[in-house]
């Protein structure tokens, strides 16, 4: 399967990458399955109970970089209670679909958002 234009755009020019000085929370997630060592550090700022901004740092394959970028755009404006429900499939949709070998990437990016949203709700 060839990658979609959305996937390639997010991979080549990832949005919102970097630290976020004004973050209300920072969380780390890494892939816990066999083999893969992809890691994400996610920063988030909350405005009025909604995700105001998400940034991240990532060590990962093209899929995980693209998924982080898509997730960071998807997250903005989401109420925290919705952000804790985000699934890999939601991120995959933003990327115009991903092949099976990149399923771990969208799952990990979604997990990063859920993890930080959960922390912010506490």
């Amino acid at each position: 399967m060839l990658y979609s234009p959305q996937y390639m755009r997010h991979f080549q020019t990832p949005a919102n990458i970097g630290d976020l000085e004004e973050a209300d929370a920072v969380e780390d997630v890494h892939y816990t399955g066999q083999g893969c060592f992809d890691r994400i550090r996610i920063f988030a700022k909350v405005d009025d109970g909604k995700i105001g901004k998400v940034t991240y740092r990532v060590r990962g394959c093209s899929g995980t970089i693209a998924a982080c970028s898509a997730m960071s755009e998807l997250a903005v404006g989401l109420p925290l209670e919705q952000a804790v429900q985000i699934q890999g499939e939601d991120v995959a949709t933003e990327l115009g679909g991903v092949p099976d070998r990149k399923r771990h990437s969208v799952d990990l990016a979604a997990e990063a958002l859920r993890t930080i949203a959960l922390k912010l709700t506490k």
Partner: protein
Amino acid sequence: MEDRLIYFDNNDTTPLLDPVVTAMLPFFTKAFGNPASLHQLGLEAEEAVNEARATISGLIGAKPEELIFTGSATEANNLAILGAAANASSKRRHLITSKIEHNAVINPIKRLEKDGFRVTWLDVDPEGFVNSEDLKKAITPETFLVSIVHGNHEIGTVQDIKALGMICREAGVLFHTDAAQSFSKVPLNVTNDLVDLASFNAHKLHGPKGIGALYVRGGVHLKKIMEGAPQEFNMRPGTENVPGIIGFAAAAKLAFETLSRDSAHMSAVRDHLIEQLLQIPHTRLNGPRGNRRLPTNADITFKYIEGEAILMHLSMRGVAVSSGSACSSKNLTPSNVLTSIGLKHEDAHGSIRFSFSKLNTIEETDIAAKKVIEVVELLRSMTAFVPEKHSETEGSGEVFYKKKKEEL
């Protein structure tokens, strides 16, 4: 994508050379006969196949009747391993291989292991070499086969095949080598090097895909693994891939005509790229240097970043390479070769294989090296795990994370 592709993935496959295509073309349309047919067209096809067989066998020090054409080196490996096992006596149910073999050797052997054969998986040293003493110690009266790759497909290690062959010959054990990567790149004479079985293919030497060969030393008996008509000395049924065989012989002949010159050229290209890339901080060369390495191969680990992301960025910049990254594979398993030479899984993920043919140039390595430096800097700028960036020691990213979280 830039206009001119720099193709550094020749351990994967190579482009056909024009004379190879020219040699093959008549056998698609005019001389299309089946070598088994008894009419003129068939006899001509049979003659052409026999000439090709004589050409290739002559290049490896074998007799024509010792060469069986197959569909690939993978099939040749399967025929050697499964065919030898099927022919082994019930008292000889042990075989020996190394931990850095290609899947085309590993998986038939794993099948035998499941079927009750005992397998010794030999360790290799940090450069990927099998220790002769380890092999000697592993051989038992039950051992029927040793299979050790000649030139490794990922890190380029070229084993001392004659030393290993001698141990096996003295012990009365069959010795098989997968020579798919080494054929026409480094010398191999199956007779002098005491090899009983050797696998080859065409598409790593500017020949076509879908054609391989197995050398079977005269007097060595295998059981065939497919049933059908009695082609290929009744060892490999199926109508011969005549254009493929002709292309294989044409490519091999061309390669051997200039083997010394081409090997020297590819070694120079390889070493020029290695020297430039090792200037990048936190890199390491996997496998040996010099003439104990395939002239076609350079494998470099770029720590703290993911090989597949490097590969994709290089691809967009017009450089084709391959990666030992698990993220390049569907099941996310890391390269068995890189972990067997002692790389941490995390570092195996950051490894890139650059592989060359005689068509590559020094100029291409200069262009590619600049692009690699640019990509590595870009990807390292995205991660929180590069040591000097955060004054952390290598591999302690988790510590950094925890510290930063506590600060926040």
